[in-house]
């Protein structure tokens, strides 16, 4: 039968392509090529948070391209090897194993989310490969709950608790709030981390958390019940540390319910069309903490280059992917060799690295960079730089 034959050929072709694809890049195991430095990227290219992963990967690729155009690192060109973790922890472990053992990279950039980074840590620790996550902000990535330092993990961003702290200080000092309500995504460690530090900072200053409501991201679309509870408690501000989709809906429904107080959030707001979801009117009197502000002059060159290369607008994910790659390249330069332990030490003692999201000084005790945070304000649907908060 003709169709049967076509079918057989197609399947055979596809399967053999798969096998060949798996075999072909097997580099000679013992001697890494002398004139190329391999840097791996473990990003969320498909799945739930692919939007962040792609932006981060593009930022990292741009940094590597610029470095190559400027002559590479240590006189060698940099080769970027990508891997997809499908926005899933198990796949992140597999992708890291691939980069570590098959591609034999000397450093890894990514993943973007804390959960996927956590899944990569045992692998990079086993094979001794420094990893710089652009936006893995959970504090347990570099220092475990037991207080031990993860030697090989670094990050280009400040940590979650810092965002909550910044938001709480801004709410108290600038907005004069004394009563706050929290709306937390119970599914994400990101939201939970921010909310916990906001609460701690706010309550330590003698102020009151009057309500703490929960929702499930990706599922809930009607928030009127929790908003009614919040309205009855009459807070001065509401802190919603979620991602743009749910936060947009919550803000819209809050304004519909005549809740006019200031609403604050974290950098998850800045990742998508939050204004389209909530509406320009509703977004007035809202603020969020972010790593970078678009009207920052230091960012203009990068934003233009990013737009020219990918025809996309640069956001903080792209900027931090760029900074993470630049940080790793600077560490290789500083170490003066491609020895992974030397690169790790160089990262640990990195100071005065001029990133586009702020100067980075790595704290060698926690591997967390000390850098400043920006507060952005929405005015008629436009993001406007409101304040810059330096670490205390």
């Amino acid at each position, binding site marked *: 039968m003709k169709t049967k034959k076509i079918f057989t050929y197609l399947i055979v072709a596809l399967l053999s392509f798969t096998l060949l694809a798996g075999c072909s890049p097997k580099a000679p195991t013992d001697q890494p090529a002398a004139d190329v430095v391999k840097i791996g990227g473990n990003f969320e*290219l498909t799945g739930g948070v692919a939007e962040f992963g792609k932006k981060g990967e593009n930022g990292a690729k741009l940094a590597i391209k610029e470095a190559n155009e400027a002559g590479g690192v240590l006189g060698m060109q940099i080769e970027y090897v990508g*891997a997809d973790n499908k926005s899933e922890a198990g796949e992140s*472990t597999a992708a890291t194993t691939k980069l570590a*053992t098959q591609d034999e990279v000397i450093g890894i950039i990514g993943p973007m989310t804390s959960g996927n980074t*956590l899944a990569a840590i*045992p692998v990079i620790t086993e094979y001794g490969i420094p990893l710089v996550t652009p936006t893995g902000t959970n504090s347990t990535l570099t220092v475990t709950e037991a207080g031990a330092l993860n030697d090989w993990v670094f990050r280009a961003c400040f940590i979650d608790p810092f965002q909550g702290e910044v938001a709480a200080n801004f709410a108290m000092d600038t907005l004069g709030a004394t009563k706050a309500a929290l709306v937390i995504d119970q599914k994400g460690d990101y939201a939970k981390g921010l909310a916990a530090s906001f609460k701690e900072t706010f309550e330590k200053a003698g102020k009151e958390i009057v309500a703490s409501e929960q929702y499930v991201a990706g599922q809930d679309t009607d928030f009127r019940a929790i908003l009614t509870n919040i309205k009855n408690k009459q807070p001065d501000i509401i802190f919603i540390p979620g991602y743009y989709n749910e936060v947009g809906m919550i803000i819209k429904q809050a304004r519909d319910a005549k809740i006019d107080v200031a609403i604050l959030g974290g950098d998850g707001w800045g990742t998508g069309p939050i204004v389209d979801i909530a509406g320009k009117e509703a977004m007035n009197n809202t603020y969020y903490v972010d790593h970078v502000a678009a009207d920052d002059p230091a960012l203009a060159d990068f934003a233009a280059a990013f737009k020219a290369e990918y025809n996309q607008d640069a956001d903080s994910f792209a900027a931090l992917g760029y900074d993470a790659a630049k940080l790793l390249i600077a560490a290789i330069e500083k170490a003066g060799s491609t020895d992974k332990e030397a690169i790790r030490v160089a990262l640990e003692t990195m100071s005065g690295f001029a990133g586009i999201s702020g100067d980075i000084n790595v704290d060698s005790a926690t591997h967390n960079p000390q850098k400043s945070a920006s507060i952005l304000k929405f005015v008629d649907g436009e993001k406007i730089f409101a304040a810059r908060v330096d670490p205390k």
Partner: protein
Amino acid sequence: MKLFNVKNLIRLLVLMVVYGIIQYLFINKAINPFYMMTLVLVCIYIILAVSQNIITGFTGQLALGHAGFMAIGAYMSALVVVRMQGSLVAGIIFGALMAAAAGMLIGLPTLRLRGDYLAIATLGLGEIVRIFFLNMDYLGGATGFSVPKTIDWTWAFWLMALSVFLMSSFINSSHGRACISVRENEIAAEAMGINTTKYKVMAFTMGAFFAGLAGAIYANYMYLIHPGTFSFLKSFEILAMVVLGGLGSITGSVVGAGVLTIISAGLADYPEFRMVIIALVMIILMVYRPNGLLGNKELKLDFLRIKKKG
């Protein structure tokens, strides 16, 4: 059926040869750790696909809660190993037994439903399990739960071999034939004196047990278990392997699990095309072979050719 007949000895011999070759290649570094990880994942998915096949392929019940049972096995074994300092064996057995218990508990009320209704009910139950672990801060919650890696290729391979052997023995027993009769015609089976609910629950419990076992292997191999791993997409992935290999064929499930896992790993260098190609393979297969790669036939070792089943 005796346990040590010639047929089983030949099977054991073939398994030992396969195991030996792969172990030899690994020791001589012809297989790198990434491919080794892929092979262990193939073993895990084979157990999952065959156990799903017991429920869906042989007993004819469209259940979509397999990721939930896998999660129970994973988290319960991690509970024993990490929180109670128990041994790996104790963890695996406890995980599988808890999954089986959950399967029985869930199976008793839900297996009275048929077709789409059962699918929806089990889908919901799988999600309940995931959300339960998501909110269990004692077991890591939303951050994920770190488990030391104690499983290696040897463990995974022989546990897989043992599981497939036990499940195929079940299908070839009188209980297995009763399950098949439920699939073929439930009313006729009942008229012949078969307690259909009993056999449905039996198949469901057995499927849950081995899904739990696979979850326990996964937890002790992958360093970290995360509730997001056990979403309903995982259930669909397992079902896709079963349908790809052929509903009602154990060797089909083995092939389906192997093909899908290896395609996914082999295309890791082309992340942009990976999902597209996997989807294409599935579409082409379903258009040209709606019964799956092997239909309901089994690959038999003794003649090394495809033979029609009984």
